[in-house]
């Protein structure tokens, strides 16, 4: 029996050599249980050591291996070759991001956005650990737990048409993360966080097509978070117009 072969078409771009990106094709042995990352690793180990892409855990938990596979943003480590039609699979860097080299994109913008929403529990007064934990019931956890499953893979940004048009948009994952803290019963930082989320450009253009929620490999629903923060933002804005600010 002749060996089953898959063709992997990968975007190549080495800024020290190439004026612009182009496709390169590699042949790899095809197996039913092979993921796209296995194919890339095969190429790097056996055919071309210069092929450049990111990964680290190989099991869908670190979020570093995203790429556009046959046009869809996906994790290369969690996408089987057999999920795609035919034996030729195209792997490109995630859309909407500047490309550093081959499949590696610049994450700077996303990283800054993550920090901007203050992704930690804010307390009016910190109490020392000796005074015990900040307790939370299972019900309270339920309110935000899906939003805490995000692995920062940025696939939702690659899928988001609004982010593609306006880079200033806080975007799906960062909004979901902000919402995760807003909904956390232990957090007392809403006053600080609201203006940041509310001022985000682009949110009102979000048409709620929900591409972000479709591509998310972790079952996070960023669209829901955007929707909810919009509503919260609106009521909060009205409230602050109507009510004088009192000391607490």
């Amino acid at each position: 029996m002749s060996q089953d072969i898959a063709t992997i078409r990968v975007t190549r771009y080495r800024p020290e050599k190439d004026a612009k990106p182009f496709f390169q094709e590699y042949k790899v042995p095809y197996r039913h249980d092979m993921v796209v990352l296995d194919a890339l690793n095969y190429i790097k180990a056996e055919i071309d050591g210069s092929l450049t892409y990111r990964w680290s855990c190989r099991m869908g938990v670190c979020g570093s291996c995203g790429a556009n596979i046959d046009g869809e943003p996906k994790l290369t480590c969690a996408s089987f070759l057999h999920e795609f039609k035919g034996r030729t699979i195209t792997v490109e860097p995630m859309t909407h991001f500047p490309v550093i080299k081959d499949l590696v994109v610049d994450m700077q913008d996303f990283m800054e956005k993550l920090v901007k929403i203050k992704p930690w529990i804010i307390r009016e007064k910190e109490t020392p650990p000796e005074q015990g934990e900040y307790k939370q019931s299972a019900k309270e956890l339920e309110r935000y737990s899906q939003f805490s499953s995000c692995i920062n893979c940025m696939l939702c940004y690659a899928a988001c048409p609004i982010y593609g048009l306006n880079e200033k948009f806080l975007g799906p994952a960062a909004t979901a993360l902000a919402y995760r803290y807003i909904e956390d019963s232990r957090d007392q930082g809403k006053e600080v966080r609201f203006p940041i989320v509310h001022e985000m450009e682009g949110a009102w253009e979000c048409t709620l097509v929900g591409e972000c929620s479709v591509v998310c490999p972790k079952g996070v629903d960023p669209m829901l978070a955007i929707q909810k923060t919009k509503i919260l933002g609106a009521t909060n804005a009205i409230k602050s117009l109507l009510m004088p600010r009192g000391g607490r």
Partner: protein
Amino acid sequence: MVDDGRVEGVTAIEVRTGELVTILGKAVIIATGGCGRIFQFTTNGWIKTGDGMALAYRAGVPLKDMEMVQYHPTLLPNTGILITEAARGEGGHLLNKDGERFLKRYVPNKMELGPRDILSRAEMSEINAGRGFEGPYGSYVNLDLTHLGKITIEDKLPFVKELAEKYLGIDPEHEPIPVRPGQHYMMGGVHTDMHGFTGMPGLYAAGEVACVSMNGANRLGSNSLTECLVFGAAAGRAAARYAVKMESPSFGNPVQGEVMMEEKRIFDQILKHEQGERISSVRTEMQNGMEKHVGIYRDENSLKEGCRIIGDLKTRLSNAIVEDKDHVYNTELVAALELDFMLDVAETIPYSAIQRRESRGAHYRTDYTKRDDANFLTHSMAHKTPGPPRIDYSPVTITRWKPEERVY
């Protein structure tokens, strides 16, 4: 970076530009995790290449108890993805080719709830006796959950179901899951005291990379959390206490310059080779060699072979090529440096294991099957030398709990 016996920072590569930088610090805490990728089958992420262990070792800190390598009994054969202990906790059975719950011969009183090391060895014994299954990724045994029923599997083990379906196309309600043992955790690591202090002024370590010795020769499940949270905090506090009383290392001091020169030399050397073998073949042979000769079952001959293989591979790596000569985002160069780290760390394992002529915890010698407290109730310490590692010993401090015989 070590100046006059004191650690004063690290050198690093800005991967994005390929630039070498030095980062000065009054104290350095190593928290880089384990080195599972030395082995063929591991539950670790593939970036676990032992870099932190190698850095401390090269700086002169011994690696302690490196022969104590924990194997986990239930990995998926191809990917090494871990199937949680809960699958056995809920009542799953381990079966050999004859459909037999073979653990009755090894841990009759505990069966599937027995300790990880004994279960891993039992699986290996079954496989070696020809009672395993043969698959495209080597031998395995079955983890059977079919008798647990849909409700238990869906409610209690949803993640197991998801993994089996996703990675094997198997529905565990109707079919057993193929599993095999694989590397899971390093009990050994950078020698530290209770405060994460390595003995070298300015250098601390915490987490799996460190060996504070709370795991002895065999870690119990979840104790890695204690290592991170309790000893991570201890290391942080100790490093902070040290840092506040020290002067900052000065910029542009000679050590900084020397280190840069040395690193440059290495890079130039690695990147200049035009012909030779790929680093990937060296890496694969290391992983296979460690699995085969320094794995679950060891003896004098296999360990000798392990030492030899790693020695040879070190020579081969120094002649291997990195095809990618770019400065920008050179992941192949990073992989070469990581392999260099892995080989240093890997070498300490068979050298430490060969001298421990007994079986203890996760370390099992088929030629010395008994524990020998008279001679080996002691920590091994691997020191870096220009040649193979030098092994000496440091005493075990026993407080409340006396070592006892393991009976199950």
